[in-house]
């Protein structure tokens, strides 16, 4: 552990940018985007500097800490605003600021015609700051701040064009579903404090060694819920597709490369908990496996290019979650896939944005076709990302996905075979739906609507795509060369013992490549070499129909949670008015009614009153008579 004094600036720079841009108002319209980009880039530079500092030290000393101030301190509950930059965080820092800066550059051009571009950049900077806080916080509570911060930024960015009611609804949906996950994180922190007495990563790690399995399982499951919410994992995945309402750069940065992977970060960061809680770990694997198939199935049926990519993201994060659930063998691989995915998926989203830019914001792939000729750079960069994601060697995705499949098979026993098969099946599906996207968009015959003049995007847009494409090509090789990333992360995740290999490495690679070929071939046959309808055909199998409806995820949520919730709300509103307040009003009405009844005795006739007095005297004297008896 080494103390540092400069970690705070990593967060402060983009945060300052966001505040300045928001407060300055229209005055900053001219230069706001430049400032934001510069600040994001300088944060990236600072990250590189930290990396260089880190490299100078021994592996065990590469964790930097910084205590900014004491944040909350009550009794034994002491949380510092403390930062922790270790080998795991630095990966994220560089990914966030690096991809983030590229996307800032891209957005300068992409958003140039939007009157609210300054606001957009303010949100982007806010996102960068929050995401950095998420990965740099040294305790679960600090992470929580970043966690909700990115949720807020995501909400603002999805709803950036919230004048469209559907987009506003999408942003709300994302926020609320994220909040369910956040609740899990809250529970995890509460359990950690109540049972372990601390909420810092270091503290929990130390305490977890002597903690009971039940405690750790509880914390682990809660963390999993949190991760599922943020990373769009089953069963909290429904928001991601709608989140594509945001501008495409947002989808690339937040809903592909960085924010949605925060769940994987949380699980890998909490490796010491999951290692000691096998039940929780098993649940992680199950969630990952289910999501990976779930997302892939949805991806096969989507005609909206962004939604197809979103489904793919869901599926790929399923891979990562699955890997993270495989224990020490999988953490580093999950991170590796996360990083490579960050490159190629961001690149592909930017490519999709570029396509939309040239096609008047058309997102329906059935209205694309033959765009490769008109957008060569987009075509090539997107294609490189495509090759990476389906896992064609030697592109990045091949290395990381291959490792996941291998580790899954090596998990041992029936579990291993089952998981391995699922990952392989996922690879087939991935190859299929990505090929479908590729073919429908770039290589198949054109099916444009009228008045379309596709054109290549300006340099500010294609430059980031090129950089990301280079990343998609090279990172896999770089990370695996000599197990570089695995060794780099070893101080965080610990060394893992050798597993008995169920299948040799080469067999797995061969299987994976076969899967890719199968999936890609089907797609090619179906879309490249046969006619594609410009309108989505109605006579399709039930599976396709289900996949188009996102496997009924929304219907499920609506019928199980939303409608009963609405009914409950209506009942409660009525009940509050009629029952609770009704009781109160009844008291009032009783008083009024009693008054009205008693008023009848007030006839206004003095003689009636005197009769009453007489009766009163009678009662009185009768009382005396009875008492003195």
């Amino acid at each position, binding site marked *: 552990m080494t103390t540092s004094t400069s970690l705070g600036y990593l967060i402060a720079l983009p945060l300052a940018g966001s505040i300045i841009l928001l407060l300055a108002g229209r005055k900053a319209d001219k230069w706001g985007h430049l400032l934001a980009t510069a600040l994001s880039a300088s944060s990236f530079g600072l990250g590189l500097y930290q990396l260089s500092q880190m490299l100078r030290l021994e592996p065990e000393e590469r964790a930097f800490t910084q205590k900014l101030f004491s944040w909350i301190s009550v009794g034994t509950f002491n949380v510092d605003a403390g930062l922790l930059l270790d080998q795991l965080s630095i990966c994220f820092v560089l990914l966030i600021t690096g991809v983030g800066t590229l996307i800032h550059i891209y957005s300068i051009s992409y958003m140039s015609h939007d009157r609210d571009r300054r606001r957009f950049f303010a949100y982007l900077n806010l996102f960068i700051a929050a995401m950095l806080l998420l990965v740099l916080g040294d305790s679960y509570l600090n992470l929580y701040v970043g966690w909700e911060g990115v949720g807020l930024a995501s909400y603002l960015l999805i709803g950036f064009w919230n004048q469209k009611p559907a987009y506003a609804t999408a942003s709300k949906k994302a926020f609320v579903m994220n909040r369910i996950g956040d609740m899990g994180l809250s529970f995890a922190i509460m359990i950690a404090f109540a049972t372990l007495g601390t909420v810092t990563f270091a503290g929990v790690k130390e305490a977890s060694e002597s903690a009971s399995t039940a405690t750790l399982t509880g914390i682990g499951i809660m963390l999993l819920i949190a991760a599922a919410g943020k990373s769009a994992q089953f069963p909290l995945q429904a928001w991601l597709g709608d989140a594509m309402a945001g501008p495409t750069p947002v989808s690339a940065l937040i809903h592909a490369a960085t924010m949605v992977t925060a769940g994987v970060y949380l699980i890998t960061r909490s490796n010491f908990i999951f290692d000691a809680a096998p039940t929780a770990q098993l649940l992680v694997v199950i969630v990952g496996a289910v999501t990976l198939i779930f997302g892939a199935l949805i991806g096969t049926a989507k005609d909206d290019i962004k939604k197809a990519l979103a489904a793919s993201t869901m599926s790929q994060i399923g891979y990562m979650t699955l890997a993270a659930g495989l224990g020490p063998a999988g953490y580093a691989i999950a991170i590796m896939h996360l990083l490579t995915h960050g490159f190629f998926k961001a690149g592909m989203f930017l490519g999709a944005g570029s396509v939309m830019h040239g096609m008047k914001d058309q997102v329906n792939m059935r209205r694309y076709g033959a765009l490769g000729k008109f957008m060569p750079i987009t075509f090539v960069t997107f294609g490189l990302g495509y090759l990476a994601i389906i896992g064609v060697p030697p592109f990045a995705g091949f290395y990381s996905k291959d490792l996941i499949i291998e580790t899954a098979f090596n998990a041992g026993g029936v579990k291993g075979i089952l998981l391995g098969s699922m990952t392989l099946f996922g690879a087939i599906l991935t190859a299929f739906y990505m090929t479908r996207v590729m073919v429908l968009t770039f290589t198949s015959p054109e099916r444009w609507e009228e008045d379309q003049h596709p054109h290549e995007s300006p340099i500010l847009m294609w430059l980031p795509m090129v950089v990301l494409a280079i990343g998609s090509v090279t990172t896999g090789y770089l990370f695996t060369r000599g197990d570089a990333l695995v060794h780099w992360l070893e101080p965080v995740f610990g060394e893992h013992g050798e597993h008995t290999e169920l299948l040799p490495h080469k067999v797995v690679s061969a299987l994976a490549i076969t899967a890719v070929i199968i999936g890609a071939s089907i797609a090619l046959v179906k879309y490249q070499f046969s006619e594609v309808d410009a309108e989505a055909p109605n006579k399709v199998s039930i599976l396709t129909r289900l996949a188009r409806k996102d496997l009924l995820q929304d219907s499920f949520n609506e019928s199980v949670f939303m409608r009963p919730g609405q009914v409950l709300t209506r009942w409660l509103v009525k009940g509050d008015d009629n029952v609770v307040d009704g009781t109160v009003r009844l008291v009032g009405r009783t008083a009024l009614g009693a008054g009205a009844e008693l008023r009848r005795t007030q006839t206004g006739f003095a003689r009636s009153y005197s*009769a009453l007095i*007489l*009766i009163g005297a009678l009662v009185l004297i009768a009382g005396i008579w009875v008492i003195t008896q």
Partner: protein
Amino acid sequence: MLEIQTPEAVMFWVLAPLSVIAALGMLLVKKAVHSALLLAWVMVTLAIFYIAQDALFLGIVQIVVYTGAVMMLFLFILMLVGVDASDSLTETIAGLRPIAITAAVGFGGLFVALISRATLGREAVGLQAANADGNVQGLAQKLFSTYVWPFEVVSALLITAALGAMVLAHHQRSVARPTQRQQSIARFRSGSLAGAAGLPSPGVFARHNAVDVPALLPDGSAAPTSISATLKARGDMLESRSFELGEVDNTVTEEK
């Protein structure tokens, strides 16, 4: 208990039933004047009882103040107000009378029962000792020593009441009283000229003071406006028909 032992007992058993009957009569008679007279009788009996019980001063005061002053005041007001035509004994508030009588019977019964139960168990002390210096002197002693403060307060109350009664009874005119001229003009300007010559005067027959006999209209019917409304209300109006020739007693009596 009922053996007649002393003159006081004789007096009591004679006067007490009479006073109760008089009190009951107060409730039952129709005319307020009769009620007042019966009440006066009750008060006089009470004064006698006071004197019989060695309360000479109170007995005298009872007669002088109550029977003399207060009852006269009542009668005076009765005359002022006149006899209300609505002064019937039929009840207008439903169910009031049975309720009142039941309650009163119960109340009186219980009261009497209580008194019979609450006897002190010893003979009356009598006022011989207290009245040794004379009843008036004894009272004066008390009144101007122990009770001097209440005495002063009560006197203040009396003055206040007198002033209050004056203020209440004093009628402030809100508009100036119309002059004769104005009244005359008003009569001529009214709807008909019938009243222009003033109201008809009563008493067309000289053999009676005639204030209570209405004048006759040309068609021979009685003119209601010719006599006082109070007389009419009191039922003291005489039918003018009874003075028609055929009805008149023709026998001439000698007037001395």
